[in-house]
Structures are given as C-alpha cells and as structure tokens.
C-alpha cells in the first residue's frame, strides 16, 4: 500500500468583512498601548486622546470587576465621538463581557412599560458563567461486530473496536448501544463520539486513511483526522448567558423563539425572583459566576425623572452592570420635572425650580424629588397655591440629605452612648466604682 501523506486539517479562519456598513463599524478597539496611553491613530480611533485614556482606565476597572454598579457619563457636542468611544470599549471588552447598547428613546414603546424596558436592558448586561463537563469516548471505528442470538429471540450482543493514534481497545455492547450504532450507520472507518453519560453517538466524519476505500462517496461525506491521545476524554465547556436570556427561556414554553422575534413582552416579577434565587443558589454552590457587563445608554437626555429614579435604585442592586451614559446636552432640566410637579399637584415658582435644580446637583436626585413632596405639603400648610423658595428652604432644613446627616452625626457623636472616645473613660470609671 502506498504511503498516504498525513494531511493536516486546514485552519478555518473567518474573514470579517472590511467594509463600512455602519457609522461605527470600523472601530475595533480603543487604540491604547500596553501602558493605557492612546495612540494618535489606532484601531479605527483618531484623536480624543484624553477621553480615550480615561475610558481605558474605566475598561481596566471593568475587567477587574471593581466598578460594577457605578455609572459613567460621557458628554459632548454632537459628533465628538461619544458613541465611538463606547463602541471601542465594547470591542476591547471582547465577547465574554455582555455589552448592551441602547438609545434613550428606545424605552418609550407601546408594548412595554419604561421600567420593564430598562429592567430588560439591565438584565441583558449581566452575564452568568456556567460550566458543563462530560466524559466522552472518541475514536475511529476499526470493527463493529454484532451477533444475533441463534434462538431468534433474545438480546443481540456486540463488540466495538475503537482506536486512536495512540491506542486501541474493544468495547462490549449492550442492546441499546447496538441499536444506536445501527441507527447512526457507524461503519469501520468512521470517527465517532460516544457520550458516556447519555450514551449518545455522533459521527464526526470518515477517517482520512479510509478515504480510498470507495471510489465514490456521497456529497455529505466529511473526512477528518484520526483522533489523537486518549480514547476516553473529559470535555469541559464554559458558557456565558445573560440573565435576560434565562428570563425569556423560563417565562414561556417556547421562550427561545421570542429571543429571536424580539417580542418578549413583559416578564413577570415572580419569574425574575425565581431566577435570581436560583442563580444565587448556584453562586453559593460554586456552580456559577456573575459577570457584570456594561449597559450603554445613548441620548440619555431623553430619559425622564421616573427612569432616573429607577436607574438610581437598580444600580444599588448587588448584581448591577456598569452604566455608561452619553448625552449631547449640557446641564438641562430633566424631562418630567415639570410633569412631576404637576403629578404631585404642585405648582412651582420659577426660582423655586432653580433652587431645586441646584440642590439636586449638590446633593442627589432622589433627595430633590423627595423635597418636592415635602415642600408641597409645607406650601399647602401656609395656604399657598405655589411652592416658593421659602418652602423648599424649610423642607431642606427639616430633612437632611446624606452628606449633611453624616456630618451632623460626626459632630455630636459624643452625646451618644457607646461612643469610642467615651469608652476609655467609662472603663476607668467602672474599675474605681
């Protein structure tokens, strides 16, 4: 027999199309070097050096998991490259970190409420990493021998000889396995895989060394190399799925179809709670890892007050992604401040509004929103129709925000019991008593 030269299976490389199919399709990364310094022109990015350096730092923090649950705001004139930087970060993070990109106006839809749309966006950016492990027997079939019992009834017995380049062995077959082999039409020369746990047989192709057995083969025939190494291997595969995908799979019987049509509808909160507890259980048992990803909201000025309060709360969750927001407006009134006042049946005076906005800049948004309610009450108490600056001032003095309350507590801590400074004195007092 002539020596058959060993043929190497060619590496299949995917040729990505190098065309400009979208405004940002040419961006392949942030274009930073190893010291996180931006190069002038690199990976599709040009200029904006300081912004790119800053995003590089944020990227490293994301990779190390030190920035989950925080928000980043990118602001600038239209056309300055905010979306481009976000695209660059997405490419640089790679496939394993979930990156969801959406525009602020997308959450307004007739099919879904705003909070549902935001919740879905959040859950699309949180990944769960799981691992599956199987023992498989992979080898080239040398011989399949099936003996029918002489009596006509009774189980068939068989022997299967499998080999790899390093070893060869014989397996005794039971009835079910014989049936699977016959169903798969496994013959000598085929390379097969048997899953040890399920007993499932899959044909990988035909061995190259047996390519000359027949003069003509069907169009579906694949030729593969004879497997190397052990016959019985352990295969471990990790997958990263997003919480949203798990939600959808669980919320309907044919949930996976909904993933493609996009029409997921509202997912009940019981389903979400179930999934959260299941994932938490897996985390405890060491079976899963949470991979916080990135949620990028472009045109964030389109979001209104409700959305921002929702975002505030959602970021405090223990499984929260990094939120990157981009806008081309400067400091503006948040959409809905006017409506919020109307909803609370509160009319505000112009300068009261200004004071409130300034307050929200210095303290926090939530504090400012709560103040509206309180100020409204105060205004009503003095029988006024509109909230004036003095009402806000009064509310401000009555209810402290976080910074002020911590400061206040620090100042008067010695008046409280179990204060650290007091302890030594009281210890001495106790001993002498």
């Amino acid at each position, binding site marked *: 027999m002539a020596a058959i030269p060993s043929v190497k299976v060619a590496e299949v490389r995917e040729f990505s199309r190098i065309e400009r199919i979208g405004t940002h399709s040419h961006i392949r990364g942030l274009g930073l070097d190893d010291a996180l310094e931006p190069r002038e022109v690199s990976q599709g990015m040009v200029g904006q050096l300081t912004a790119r350096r800053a995003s590089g730092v944020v990227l490293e923090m994301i990779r190390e998991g030190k920035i989950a649950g925080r928000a980043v705001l990118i602001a600038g004139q239209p056309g300055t490259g905010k979306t481009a930087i976000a695209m660059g970060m997405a490419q640089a993070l790679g496939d394993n970190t979930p990156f969801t990109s959406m525009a602020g106006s997308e959450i307004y839809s007739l099919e879904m409420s705003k909070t549902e749309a935001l919740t879905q966006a959040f859950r699309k950016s949180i990944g769960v990493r*799981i691992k599956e492990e199987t023992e498989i027997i992979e080898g080239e079939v040398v011989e399949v021998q099936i003996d029918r019992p002489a009596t006509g009834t009774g189980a068939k017995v068989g022997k299967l000889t499998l080999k790899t380049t390093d070893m060869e062995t014989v397996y005794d077959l039971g009835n079910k396995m014989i049936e699977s082999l016959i169903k798969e039409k496994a013959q000598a020369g085929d390379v097969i895989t048997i899953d040890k746990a399920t007993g499932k047989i899959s044909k990988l192709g035909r061995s190259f060394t047996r390519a000359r057995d027949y003069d003509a083969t069907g169009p579906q025939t694949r030729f593969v190399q004879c497997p190397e190494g052990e016959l019985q291997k352990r295969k471990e595969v990790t997958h990263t799925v997003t919480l949203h995908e798990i939600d959808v799979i669980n919320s309907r019987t044919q949930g*996976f179809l909904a993933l493609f049509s996009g029409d997921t509808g509202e997912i009940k909160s019981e389903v979400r709670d179930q999934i959260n507890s299941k994932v938490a259980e897996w985390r405890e048992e060491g079976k899963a*890892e949470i991979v916080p990803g990135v949620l990028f909201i472009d045109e964030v000025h389109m979001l209104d007050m409700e959305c921002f309060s929702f975002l505030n709360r959602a970021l405090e969750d223990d499984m929260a992604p990094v939120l990157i927001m981009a806008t081309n407006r400067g400091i503006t009134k948040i959409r809905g401040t006017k409506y919020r006042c109307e909803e609370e049946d509160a009319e505000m005076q112009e300068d009261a509004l200004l004071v409130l906005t300034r307050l929200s800049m210095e303290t926090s948004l939530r504090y400012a929103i709560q103040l509206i309610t309180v100020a409204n009450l105060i205004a009503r108490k003095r029988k006024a129709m509109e909230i004036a600056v003095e009402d806000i001032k009064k509310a401000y003095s009555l209810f402290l925000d976080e910074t002020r309350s911590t400061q206040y507590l620090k100042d008067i801590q010695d008046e409280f019991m179990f204060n650290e400074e007091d302890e030594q004195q009281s210890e001495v007092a106790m001993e002498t008593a």
Partner: protein
Amino acid sequence: MDIEKTQQFLIQTETAAQEILITKDELVALDFRRQKTREAFRALKNDMIPGEKAWMSVGNMFVKTRTLKAQNLLEREMKELDKDISDLHNKLKEQVKMLRDLEGKPELKGFDLQPITKEADIIMKALSK
C-alpha cells in the same frame, strides 16, 4: 541585561510548556492502562467459571488466582486509575494557568466552577435553536 532576561523568560516558559506536555502524555498512558484493565475485567466476567482459577498477567508475571479475587483486583485497579486520572486533570489545569500567567495571557475564566451539565444542556439547547 535584556538578553539575560529574555533567556530567563524563555527557560521558564519552555519548562512550563514541557511540564504540560508531560502531563498530557501521562494522561494518555493512564487511559491506555484503564482501557486494558477494563478489557481484562470484561473478559474475565464473560468467560469465567466461578470457583475455578484463571491466569492473569500482573506486570511481567503470570499469576493463577481464583476468579473472584482476580475480579476484585481489577475493580480496585480501575477505581485507582480513575482517581489518578482525575488528579492529573486538576494538575493540568494548574499548569496551564501557570503557563498563561508567564506568557501574560489573561486567565481562562470559569474552569474552576462546579459543573452543572443538566441545566447547562437545557439552556444551551434552548439558546441555539
């Protein structure tokens, strides 16, 4: 200075890679033994007459033992081999981790998780449809 550092680096990475290749070869050898032991066990089971003695090769020696004793021996050996192979797999993971660390490549995440094959199967089936 640079040449020495490069040399050191090369020595380290080559040693680490060689260790990995050695472990892989050990795995193949162990699996070979496992398959042969299993074949012997099956042959004994199929052709044995309980009570009679059978010939068994232990390394270089041929030993005639009672079939039951031979079966027990083989079973114990298979269990030991399974355990050794498991340990080697873990060792291999550590060695690959070290090599990737030396080469400056990012860590392969997720391989130290406990496996959840049943649920993972369901999820991946549902997602790939």
